[in-house]
């Protein structure tokens, strides 16, 4: 096989995610009364970017064959922290942003330590830490409130040159600064290898623990970035349990739509971004088709159901029934 075939095979999930998103987005824009205008794109980008950050965070952990059920709560917690400290003049705000991201990383680090050195199963460990993070968020914001540096918020949620949504630019920057270096580093390779087959990765001398830890750490960072952006959009902090658990659940859906295997070792955070935008577009699409708002959750569920069933078409190619079992 020539080189590009390997590349294509490796990126298949991501490309699938991109394809799903493109189809949905084209249908959406074609049926939108305003058509393909900067406004429509801007709204879609701002809606999708929050889930995109959380889904990236989830993707990093899922690649190591783990799962992080606390991402939504890290997202809510960092939102509450940001509503306290990202205020005032430029310098305090900048320090606040750094502190918020550090808090997100700390949450991710705690998850990582419990899973890797505590040898706990990621599902239950992150359920428990999620409860703790939500408790902390509630401690900070018993009632919705707070404020944020509005200039910064408007700059990051507005448009560059009147056309390009700056939230998308920020997302791209994060992909370039956080994801790509990770993907290309030894540590990132180790995270993939650990997710693919931990014993094999260990035998090959990969730094499994460092790789997994980095994945959890960066996952926390990305979820924190999502929380920061939530604050920029809403100007307030709110410890909303429902929103936290909804983001956790939809991040898993986005990751799967974006072609990241829940068994680990396959897929990329970029795919998860497309998955997140696709998931968000489903909701918008129903709006463009003028479906009654009441029917939206049901149709969203059905679309999700169909989307995750597509993968099982591969079963038709299975020659040996033992291949059913992973």
């Amino acid at each position, binding site marked *: 096989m020539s080189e590009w075939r390997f590349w294509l095979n490796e990126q298949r999930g991501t490309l699938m995610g991109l394809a799903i998103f493109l189809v949905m987005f084209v249908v959406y824009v074609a049926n939108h009364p305003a058509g393909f205008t900067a406004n429509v794109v801007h709204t879609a980008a701002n809606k999708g970017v929050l889930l995109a950050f959380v889904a990236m965070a989830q993707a990093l952990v899922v690649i190591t064959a783990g799962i992080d059920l606390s991402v939504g709560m890290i997202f809510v917690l960092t939102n509450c922290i940001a509503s306290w400290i990202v205020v005032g003049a430029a310098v305090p705000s900048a320090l606040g942003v750094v502190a918020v991201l550090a808090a997100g990383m700390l949450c991710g680090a705690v998850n990582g330590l419990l899973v890797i050195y505590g*040898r706990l*199963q990621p599902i*239950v*460990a992150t359920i*428990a830490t999620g409860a703790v*993070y*939500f408790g902390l968020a509630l401690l900070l914001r*018993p009632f919705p409130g707070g404020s944020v540096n509005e200039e910064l918020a408007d700059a990051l949620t507005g448009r560059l040159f009147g056309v390009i949504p700056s939230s998308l630019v920020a997302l791209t920057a994060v992909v370039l600064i956080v994801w790509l270096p990770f993907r290309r580093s030894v540590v990132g390779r180790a995270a993939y290898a650990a997710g693919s087959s931990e014993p094999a990765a260990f035998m090959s001398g990969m730094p499994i623990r460092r790789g997994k830890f980095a994945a959890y750490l960066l996952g926390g960072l990305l979820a924190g970035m999502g929380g920061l952006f939530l604050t920029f959009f809403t100007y307030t902090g709110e410890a909303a349990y429902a929103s936290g658990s909804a983001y956790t659940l939809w991040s898993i859906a986005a990751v799967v739509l974006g072609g990241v295997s829940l068994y680990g070792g396959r897929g990329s955070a970029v795919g998860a971004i497309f998955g997140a935008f696709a998931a968000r577009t489903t909701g918008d699409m129903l709006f463009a088709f003028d479906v009654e708002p009441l029917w939206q959750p049901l149709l969203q569920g059905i679309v999700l159901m169909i989307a995750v069933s597509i993968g099982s078409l591969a079963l038709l190619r299975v020659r040996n029934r033992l291949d059913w079992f992973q």
Partner: protein
Amino acid sequence: MSETSERRMSIRARLPGFLRRADPAVVTAFGCILLLLFLGSLYSSNFLSPDYLLQQLKVASFLGVVAAGMMVAILLGHIDLSVPWVMTAGAMMACAVAGFGDTGSVAAIPAGVLCGVAFGLLNGIGVAFLRIPSMIVTLASNVVAQGLMVVYTGGFSPQDSAPPAVRWLATGAVVPGLPNAILVWGGVSVAMVFLLTRTAFGRAVYGIGNSERAAFLSGVGTRRVIMTAFVISGALSAFGGVLLAGYASKAAQAMGDPYLLPSIAAVVLGGTSILGGRGSYFGTVAGVILITLLQSILSVMQMPEAGRQIVYGVVIIVMLLLYGRAPPNR
């Protein structure tokens, strides 16, 4: 090394037989329950009164029924994330059917449970036949159930309240002083123990949890077993929802949300491996009581919600670190 293991042996040998055979996780969980009760009794002697304990068991019974279903899914090495809205759907459908006069109030409970069976079937087909990871199938069917209920209620809480039969099942008392909900939980528990330890189905569930390939090659119809397990899980979730509606005397949107994570936590705290294949039902009972007591004691101490969440999370982590750790794999 050998000295310590010998000493451990001798301690074990001196224990009475039933303790020696018991799973250490289950013993630890029951020990933690006693510890919690002891700590609570230092705060107020009411924690040891029969009234309080019965009340706690009654509250625990809703979680207990749901956790029993969750346990079957977890024993397979799968998970059922559709609990919240299957519970709500079961409760709402039971209340809705009860609106149709006398036949309706007779059919209320079966209708609610059937609703759960339907969602369980959906999950089961997805996991067993389409081979989609259970986490994502059950997630999707949770969204579908939510969507159906939103359409059904028109976005508001339904006005119809729980029918008398359902209320009686949750709050009445056949045996004076012993709430029916506890009897129901007891009945479900007996059925579960029988199912898991005395039937071929139960053996197959443990077998699939350990290695689905091996179970398949041994002639177990693994797909059928997995599907049945998810049907049981869905039915029990919906039944738990019906009971909860009887207790609260009405069905409400999102009433099942606070039950998903505690039910998983209860199963795992009871010593069931989240990877499947290992665990005893008594552990799950212990986990359910433990979580209910913990929540109750924290709320009696008038700790604010924030503190409760933090303590709750920390306690789960500490208990898991005590006995839920995976063996070192090298």
